[in-house]
């Protein structure tokens, strides 16, 4: 392609400039349209639910958006059956975060250690497989017996769910380390510990981070299910209580709060991931569109 050399800063708009500005405008228009259609979808969905629950189906079973909204307002402005909503949220969050951190650390450590030692990995392989096949959520009941109704039984449930998710990825990540990189480091003079820190851990990091995304979800599930099985505070208790009193709006309201928490956590993890994986080539999500 040949185009005239434009002096830097020259104001004369060229064909090129025009193409760029019209492409930008097209992108902006498209973004607006997508957002608009999304909002419309939500409005249609909530509206039809509201209408059908008012005229067609029994809101006692299915509840309706206005009732759920009312419930949320009620919880946040006044109180729940078990005290302030913030207490419930903070309880569940503390359990989830504690389980997440402990399970994550244990999973990463054990995964990398086992992944680096072929012999230990070979010996333990069937046991790990069996442990992974256990329906771990059932352990929540056991943990209530072991640790009582307090926080520790929920932390244990969250821990066990997170641990396995992270462990398998760390294990895989540590095994898939490029042999060439390890050999190169050995020739350059690295000892075992240096290889672990400068080669194995960084190359397993992208595997581990991928697992952390789903792991925080698991931590919340662990905490909530733990509260289901017996608790004196927490969002799980709130939902369980709503179930006991046939309060379907309460169940939905609890669900919405948990969803929001999970979304915020997901966002924080994405920030962390971007920071740690700066070195990776940007995965281009943009496609060239023909004009």
């Amino acid at each position, binding site marked *: 392609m040949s185009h005239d050399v434009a002096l830097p800063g020259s104001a004369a708009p060229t064909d090129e400039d025009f193409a760029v500005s019209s492409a930008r405008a097209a992108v902006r228009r498209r973004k607006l349209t997508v957002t608009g259609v999304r909002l419309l979808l939500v409005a249609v969905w909530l509206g039809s639910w509201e209408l059908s629950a008012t005229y067609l189906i029994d809101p006692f079973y299915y509840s309706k958006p206005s009732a759920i909204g009312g419930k949320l307002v009620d919880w946040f402005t006044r109180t729940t059956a078990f005290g302030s909503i913030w207490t419930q949220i903070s309880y569940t969050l503390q359990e989830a975060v504690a389980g997440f951190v402990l399970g994550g650390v244990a999973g990463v450590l054990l995964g990398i250690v086992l992944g680096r030692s072929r012999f230990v990995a070979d010996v333990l392989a069937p046991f790990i497989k069996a442990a992974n096949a256990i329906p771990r959520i059932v352990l929540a009941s056991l943990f209530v017996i072991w640790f009582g109704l307090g926080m520790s039984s929920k932390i244990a449930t969250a821990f066990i769910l997170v641990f396995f998710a992270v462990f398998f990825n760390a294990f895989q990540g540590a095994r898939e380390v490029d042999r060439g990189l390890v050999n*190169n480091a*050995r020739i350059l003079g690295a000892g075992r510990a240096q290889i672990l820190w400068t*080669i194995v851990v*960084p190359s397993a990091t992208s595997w581990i981070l991928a697992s952390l995304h789903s792991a925080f979800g698991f931590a919340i599930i662990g905490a909530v299910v733990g509260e289901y099985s017996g608790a004196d505070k927490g969002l799980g208790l709130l939902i369980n209580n709503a179930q006991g009193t046939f309060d379907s709006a309460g169940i939905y309201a609890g669900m919405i709060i948990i969803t929001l928490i999970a979304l915020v956590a997901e966002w924080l993890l994405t920030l962390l991931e971007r920071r740690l994986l700066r070195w*990776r080539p940007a995965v281009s999500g943009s496609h060239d569109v023909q004009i």
Partner: protein
Amino acid sequence: MTSETVPVIELVGATKRFRSASGGVHTAVRDLDLTVAAGEFVAVVGPTGCGKSTTLSLVSGLEPPSHGRVAVNGREVTGIPEGVGYMFQADAVLPWRSVLDNVALGPRYRGATSSEARDRARDWVGRVGLGGFEDYYPHQLSGGMRKRVALAQTLVNEPRILLMDEPFSALDVQTRGLMQAELLRLWSGTGAAVVFVTHDLEEALVLADRVAVMTAGPATVKQVFDVRLPRPRDAEEIRLTSGFLDVYREVWESLREEVQITRERMSGRVA
């Protein structure tokens, strides 16, 4: 000093067998004899997949020989010997480290302080012609530039023995020629011994003082040729001289049979 009399690399009757996944035994190298003197540039040429790389991993101490003797500086190789640098065929730079930090790895591993290692790395990044790219990550560089990083990473340790395993084979022809010239420039005056493995005879002759032709696998040294071309050499121009063509013809005569054998084996496998 005994460095005049003792060859820096000595392989005597070296044999390397690998267990294959199916439980069989694969002999990569058999009864290999090769000596390299201090400061000498030796190229090892042979058909693709004949076991040339295995020879290097024996010298580097990454793999122990199944039989025979491998010695570096007169001492039997048991671990990775002191003063050995190894440039691999595939990129071995760390993708999560910047150019500067990649080059600083060697000094860091060997106990230099962070600032000391970075100073030495900066010097070498400049010497391989990457000044200004210190903070780039490998994925932001071209294939040739990544090879320069790998070269700096190896040379920053100032190896007395430099092992190179088809380091430029993945590059396009022009970049390869450029990198050969760079290698000659960086090597001249270091007094390091080089063993350069390649399947490209032209590359071998451009670079080396001696060329060892390997047999089709299992590899052993078939014949060793002296390359009596003057130094310093211009990597691009020397290929056009008549002296170069004479040596090329002579060595190719020997190499051709081995290449032929490999081809027949390959086609037998395909059929």
